[in-house]
C-alpha cells in the first residue's frame, strides 16, 4: 500500500498546542476536574458578528481546521471528515433551555439549526466553499477513528486527494454538571498533573484537532499513517488478534513498535487492565500517556494523533508524556486508546524521514 502522509495539523486543546512553541515546552496545569481548552484569539478567522453566533465547538473546530489547512498550504480540501462524540452541546442546551423557559413558544431557530453534529464540518465547507465529500461520524470514542478510516480509504482510492479530517468535542456547563452526577470524574479538585498518581477517577476534557492527509509527500520529514482499528467491548484475545492483523498488514513485528501512547485516564481499574495488556503485548517498547494533558473525552485520540505525529517529526518524547523509557527513538508509534473500558482502538503512525 502506498503511504498516506500527514501534511498539516491544527490542534486546540487544554494545552497550548497551537502557535510556534516547541512541543509541550510548557505544560498547562489545571486544578479542576474540567480541563478547558487554551484557546487562540478567534478574530483572526472570524468577524465579531460571526463570533457572537458561534458556540465554542464551532470556533475551535473551524480554527483547528484552518490551522491544519494553512500548514498543508492548501485553501480548499477535496473532502472534510469530522468526528464528534457529543456534537454541538452548547446549542443543544440553549434550545432545550428556551423550550422550557418559553413553554415551547416563540423560539429562535438558530440554536436548533446549529445543534446537529454535522454543523462543524458543514460550517467549514460553507466558509471554504468546499463542495466536495462531507462526512460526520459520531460513534462515541470511535468518532475520530471512524473519520480517520474514511480518510485513509479515500486517499487509498485516489492518492492525489487532500482530505481534511479531525475530531472535535466541547464541554459545556450543562454537560459537565450532568456527567459529574454519574460520578465518572474525580470528586476533589486537584492538579491534572497528578492524574495517574492518585487514581481517583478521570478528568473531563475537550478539544479540536484537524489534519490534512494526502498520498503526496510534501516534505522530507513527513509522518505516515499506517492503520486504524477499533474494538467494541472486546476481550484481551480479540485485541491481541486485532493487533496481529494490523501489524501483519503493515508488514511489521511487535518488536518494531518503538513507542506505545496509552489512553490511560486516571481510573485505577481500567488503567491497570490497559497497562497489563501493554506489558504483555509490547514488552520491548517505550510507553507514554497523554490524558493528563488532554482530559478524557470521546475524541481524545485526535489529541494523541497530533502528539504522536509531533513526536515522530521531532524524534523526541516530552518528559511530561514518558512513562517507560527504553531509549528507543520514536519511528513507529502506536496509539493504544481505551475509553471507560468499553472502547479500544489502535492507530499506527510511522516516520517517513528520507534518511530512514
Amino acid at each position, binding site marked *: 500500500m502506498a503511504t498516506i502522509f500527514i501534511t498539516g495539523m491544527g490542534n486546540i486543546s487544554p494545552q497550548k498546542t497551537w502557535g510556534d512553541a516547541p512541543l509541550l515546552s510548557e505544560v498547562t496545569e489545571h486544578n479542576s476536574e474540567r480541563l478547558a481548552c487554551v484557546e487562540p484569539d478567534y478574530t483572526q478567522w472570524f468577524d465579531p458578528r460571526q463570533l457572537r453566533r458561534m458556540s465554542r465547538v464551532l470556533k475551535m473546530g473551524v480554527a483547528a481546521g484552518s490551522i491544519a489547512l494553512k500548514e498543508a498550504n492548501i485553501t480548499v480540501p477535496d473532502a472534510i471528515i469530522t468526528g464528534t462524540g457529543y456534537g454541538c452541546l452548547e446549542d443543544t442546551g440553549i434550545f432545550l433551555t428556551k423550550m422550557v*423557559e418559553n413553554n415551547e413558544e416563540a*423560539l429562535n431557530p438558530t440554536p436548533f439549526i446549529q445543534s*446537529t453534529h*454535522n454543523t462543524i464540518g458543514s460550517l467549514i465547507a*460553507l466558509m471554504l466553499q468546499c*463542495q466536495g465529500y462531507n462526512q*460526520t461520524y*459520531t460513534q462515541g470514542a470511535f468518532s475520530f477513528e471512524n473519520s480517520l478510516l474514511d480518510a485513509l480509504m479515500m486517499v*487509498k482510492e485516489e492518492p492525489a486527494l487532500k482530505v481534511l479530517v479531525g475530531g472535535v468535542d466541547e464541554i459545556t456547563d450543562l454537560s459537565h454538571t450532568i456527567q459529574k452526577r454519574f460520578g465518572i470524574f474525580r470528586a476533589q479538585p486537584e492538579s491534572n498533573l497528578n492524574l495517574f498518581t492518585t487514581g481517583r477517577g478521570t478528568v473531563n476534557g475537550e478539544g479540536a484537532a484537524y489534519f490534512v492527509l494526502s498520498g503526496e509527500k510534501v516534505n522530507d520529514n513527513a509522518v505516515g499513517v499506517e492503520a486504524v482499528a477499533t474494538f467494541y467491548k472486546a476481550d484481551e484475545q480479540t485485541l491481541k488478534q486485532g493487533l496481529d492483523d494490523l501489524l501483519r498488514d503493515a508488514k511489521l513485528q511487535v518488536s518494531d513498535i518503538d513507542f506505545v501512547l496509552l489512553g490511560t485516564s486516571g481510573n485505577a481499574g481500567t488503567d491497570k487492565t490497559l497497562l497489563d495488556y501493554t506489558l504483555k503485548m509490547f514488552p520491548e517498547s517505550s510507553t507514554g500517556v497523554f490524558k493528563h494533558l488532554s482530559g478524557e473525552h470521546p475524541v481524545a485520540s485526535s489529541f494523541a494523533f497530533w502528539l504522536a505525529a509531533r513526536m515522530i517529526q521531532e524524534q523526541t518524547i516530552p518528559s511530561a508524556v514518558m512513562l517507560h523509557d527504553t531509549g528507543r527513538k520514536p519511528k513507529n508509534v502506536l496509539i493504544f486508546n481505551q475509553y471507560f473500558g468499553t472502547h479500544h482502538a489502535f492507530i499506527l503512525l510511522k516516520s517517513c524521514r528520507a534518511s530512514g
Partner: protein
Amino acid sequence: MDRTENFFPAFHQDSAKGKLHDVVNHECGRSTEIVADDLGIHHFISTINTACSSSVNAIALGSRLINHGMLDIVVAGGTDALSKFTLNGFNSLMILDKEPCRPFDATRKGLNLGEGAGFVVIVSERVLQQEKKKSLAMVAGYGNTNDAYHQTASSPEGRGSYAAMQKALAMSGLSVTDIDYINLHGTGTLNNDVSEGTAVKRFFGDQLPRMSSTKAFTGHTLGASGGIEAVFSVLAIMHQCVFPNLRFEATMPEVEIVPQQKFEQTTVNHVMSNSFGFGGNCSSIIFSKQ
C-alpha cells in the same frame, strides 16, 4: 435527541434533579452500540450524523468497507424517533405543514415530521456465492457532496444535489436514461422541492424518469429517511413498481416537475434515491436489479 428532553425540565429547575436514566443514551452513537450488543459485534461499528442524509451515507460507507475488503457483511441504515426537540425546531423554522404534506405541489406549505427505522443488509460477492443466495438488489453507486450555500437552505439551482446525483451515476457506470425511478428527497418545503426539482431537471434534461416523494406517506423521518427510502427503492425493484406522490395536484411555477401520481407496475431496473440534509449535506444512491 431522545429522552434527554424528558430529563431536562426537572434538571433546569434544580441541577441535582432529573432521572439520569433518561440521559444514558443521549450520545448519537448509542443506538448502534445497543444493536452491536444485541448482535455480539466486537469489531467495526459506526454512526454517521449528516442530518437528513445520514442513513444514505451509512449504506454507502458499508458498501465501501466491503469494496475495500475490510468487511463481508454489514447492517446499515438509520433510525429516528419523534421528539419535542425536533418538532419545536422545525416549527421555529416555520417549515411544518399543519395539513398532510404535498411534495412538489404548487400549494405545498412544508413538511410533516415522521419517525421510523430502515435498514438493509449488505454483503460481499463472496458471501453471496458462499451462501448461494440471490440478492434483492445491488448498490450500484453513491455520491456525497456539500451544497456549501447556507446552513439550512439549499441553493436555488441545487448545485450540491446535482453533484451528488452526478457522482452516484458516474460510479454506477449507467447513463441518465437507465434510471427508471427516482425516490426524491421531496420534503414538501418551498425551498427543497424547487431546489431538488431544478437539479433533477438540469441533470436528466428531457429524459425525466418516473419519480415520487414517499414522504407524503411517511412524513420526513429525518435521519432515518435514507434508510426507509432505500427499503422503498429495493421494494420497487423487487415488485417492479413505482409509488405515487400523494396529494399532488398542480405543478410548481418555478420548475415543472410532474411526479408519479398512481401506484403502477412497470419495469424497474435502476432506482436513484436522494437525501439532503441541513448543513448542505447532499447524498444520492443508486440501487440496481441483480
